C-alpha cells in the first residue's frame, strides 16, 4: 500500500518535473534570446550619444550660418556678439585657444618628455613605482582646482614679476594648463619608450654608449610615433580645456598676440554665452553651436591624427 502510493507520488513528480523543466527551458530560451538584444540596445546608447552630439551641433550651427556667412565666421577678426551691429568672427577665439595651447605644450612638452625619459630609462623599479602614480595624481585633480590656482596664485606671482600683466591674462592659464598635461605626456611617452625591447637598448649599451646616448639615438627614435602621439593628444586636451581659461583668462574678445592681456578661448566663449541666458533662437544662441562645432572638429582631428601617427609610424620589433 505504502509502496503503491510512493510509486504514484513518483509518477506525478516526474511528470511535474518534466513540465517544470520545459517551463524553465522556455524561460532560459527567452533569456538567451532577449538579453543580447537588451545589451545591444545599451551598447547603442554610445552611438546615439555621438549622433546626438553631431546632430545638435550641426543642426543648430546651420541656423547660425544662414545668418552669418561661413566665410565671415572663419575669417572675421572681430567678435562683438552683444553690440548693436553684432560681429561674429571666430579668429579671436581661435587665437586665444591656440596661444594658450602653445604655452601649455611649451611647458608640458619638454618637462613631460624628460620625466618620461627619467622614468623609463633611468629610474629603478622601486623609484618608478612611487613616482609614476604620484605624477598621475596631477591628472586626477579637477580642472576647476587648477583654475583657482591659476587665478589666485600664479597670476599674482606673474604680476609681481611683470607688472604690465593684467589680472586676467592668457599666460597664467597657459602655464597652469601645461602643468596639468605633464602627466599625460609623461605617462604616454613612458609607455612608448618602455615598449622598446631591452635587447635593442642592451645592444647599444654594449657598443660602449652611455645611457644618454642610447636614449637619444636608439630609444627615442624607436618610440617616436608614440611620443608624437602623446604630444598631439595633450594639445587636443589643452584645446578642449575649459575651466582654467574661463577663470583666469577672462572674456576679452580682442584679436591680439599680447600674452599679458586677457584672451577668450572657444571653450570660455561657450561658457560665457550659455551662462548669459542667450535667448533661444537668437544669432547669439546659435553662435554657441558654431563655435562648439569648430572646437569639436579641432579635437576630433587631433585625436584621429594621434591614432594615425601611432599606428602608421610604429616601429615593429
Amino acid at each position, binding site marked *: 500500500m505504502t509502496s503503491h502510493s510512493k510509486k504514484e507520488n513518483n509518477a506525478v513528480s516526474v511528470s511535474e518535473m518534466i513540465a517544470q523543466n520545459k517551463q524553465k527551458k522556455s524561460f*532560459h530560451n527567452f*533569456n538567451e534570446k532577449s*538579453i*543580447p538584444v537588451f*545589451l*545591444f540596445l*545599451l551598447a547603442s546608447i*554610445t*552611438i546615439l*550619444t*555621438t549622433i*546626438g*552630439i553631431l546632430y*545638435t551641433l550641426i543642426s543648430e550651427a546651420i541656423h547660425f550660418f544662414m545668418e552669418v556667412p561661413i566665410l565671415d565666421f572663419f575669417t572675421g577678426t572681430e567678435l562683438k556678439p552683444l553690440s548693436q551691429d553684432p560681429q561674429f568672427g571666430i579668429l579671436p577665439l581661435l587665437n586665444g585657444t591656440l596661444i594658450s595651447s602653445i604655452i601649455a605644450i611649451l611647458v608640458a612638452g*619638454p*618637462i613631460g618628455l*624628460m*620625466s618620461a*625619459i627619467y622614468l623609463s630609462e*633611468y629610474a629603478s623599479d622601486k623609484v618608478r613605482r612611487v*613616482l609614476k602614480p604620484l*605624477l598621475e595624481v*596631477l591628472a*586626477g*585633480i*579637477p*580642472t*576647476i*582646482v*587648477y*583654475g*583657482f*590656482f591659476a*587665478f*589666485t*596664485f600664479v597670476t599674482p606671482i606673474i604680476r609681481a614679476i611683470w607688472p604690465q600683466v593684467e589680472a586676467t591674462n592668457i599666460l597664467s592659464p597657459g602655464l597652469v594648463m601645461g602643468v596639468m598635461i*605633464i*602627466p599625460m605626456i609623461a605617462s604616454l611617452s613612458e609607455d612608448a619608450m618602455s615598449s622598446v625591447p631591452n635587447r635593442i637598448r642592451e645592444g647599444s649599451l654594449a657598443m660602449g654608449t*652611455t*645611457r*644618454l*646616448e642610447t636614449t637619444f639615438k636608439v630609444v627615442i627614435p624607436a618610440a617616436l610615433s608614440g611620443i608624437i602621439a602623446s604630444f598631439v593628444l595633450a594639445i*587636443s586636451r589643452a584645446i*578642449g*580645456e*575649459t*575651466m582654467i581659461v*574661463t577663470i583666469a583668462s577672462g572674456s576679452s574678445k580682442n584679436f591680439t598676440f599680447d600674452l599679458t592681456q586677457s584672451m577668450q578661448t572657444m*571653450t570660455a566663449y*561657450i*561658457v560665457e554665452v*550659455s*551662462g548669459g541666458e542667450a535667448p533661444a533662437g537668437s544669432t547669439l544662441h546659435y553662435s*554657441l553651436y558654431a563655435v562648439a562645432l569648430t*572646437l*569639436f572638429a579641432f579635437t*576630433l582631428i*587631433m*585625436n584621429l591624427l594621434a*591614432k594615425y601617427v601611432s599606428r602608421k609610424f610604429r616601429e615593429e620589433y
Partner: protein
Amino acid sequence: MAKSQAVMRQPNKINARVRINTFWKSIFFLSTLFGLFVLAILIYRVVADGMAWLDLSFLTSRLSTDPNTAGISGAILGTLWVMLVVIPVTLIVGVGTAIYLEMYAKKGFMKSIIETNIANLAGVPSIVYGLLGLTVFVRLMAFGNVVLAGGLTLSLLVLPILVVSAQEALRAVPGYLEEASYGMGATKWQTIRRIILPAAIPSILTGAILAMSRAIGETAPLTVLGIPALLIPLPGGLFDTFTALPMQIYYWTLDSSLVAEYANLAAATIIVLLVILFILNSIAIFIRNKYQQSY
C-alpha cells in the same frame, strides 16, 4: 701609432661622456620632480587659504552672501543627488555595453564601429557634452536645469571610461572558467551572470569609482547647463534645481575679486572636494589590491 693614440685618448672622452650623462640624469630627475613640486605648492596653497574656514558649520550651513556664515550644505547635497543618477546609469549602461562587446558582439563591422566610437567619445571636450545636455535634456525633454539633466549629462561624459575599464575586466577573466561553465551545461547568460561577472566585479568597481571621481570634479558641462549658485532651496528629488561642489568653487573663485574672503571659501570647498576624491581613489586602490585574483 695613430691607433694607439686614439685608444689612449679614449678614457678621457669616456669620462666626459659619462659626466654629460650624469648631468642630464639629474636634469631628467629634476623635471620629474617639477610636476610633484607644483602639486605640493597647489595643495599647500589650498590648505593655507581654506583650512581656517573649514569647520562643521561650513559643511552644514546654507549658502549666504556673508562669507562668515556661508556654507556648502546645498552643494554637497546637490553633488550627492547627481551621483545618485550617475552611478546607476553609468553602471547599467557601461557594464551592459562592455558585456555586449566582449561576450556577444561578433568580430566585425558593428563591434569595430562601437569601439572606435567609444574611443572617440572619450576625446570629446567635456563642454561639448554640456551643450548636448543643454539641447537634449534641458530644452528638448524640458527637464530644466535639474538634478536629472545634470546627472544624465555627466553619465554620458564618463561612460567611455567605464566601458573601457569594464571591457578590460571582462577580458581578464580566464577562458577556462567560461569553458568549464559551458561544459557543465550552463547557458551563455547563466555563465555570464554566475561565473564571469562575479569574477570581474572587483575590477569593474575600480573602474566605476574612477569614473565617479571624474564626474564629481567636472565643472564645464554644468556651467553650460546653467546650474546656478544662488540661494536656492536644497534639492530633494530628481526634478529639483541644484548646485554642486565644483560649481560653488567656480562662482566663489570668480567673485573673489569682489569679496576677498570668497577665495578662502573656494579653497575650503576645494579641500572638501579633494578629500572626497582622495577617499574614492583609496577605496578603488583598496578593492584592486584586496580582490586582485591571480588565476
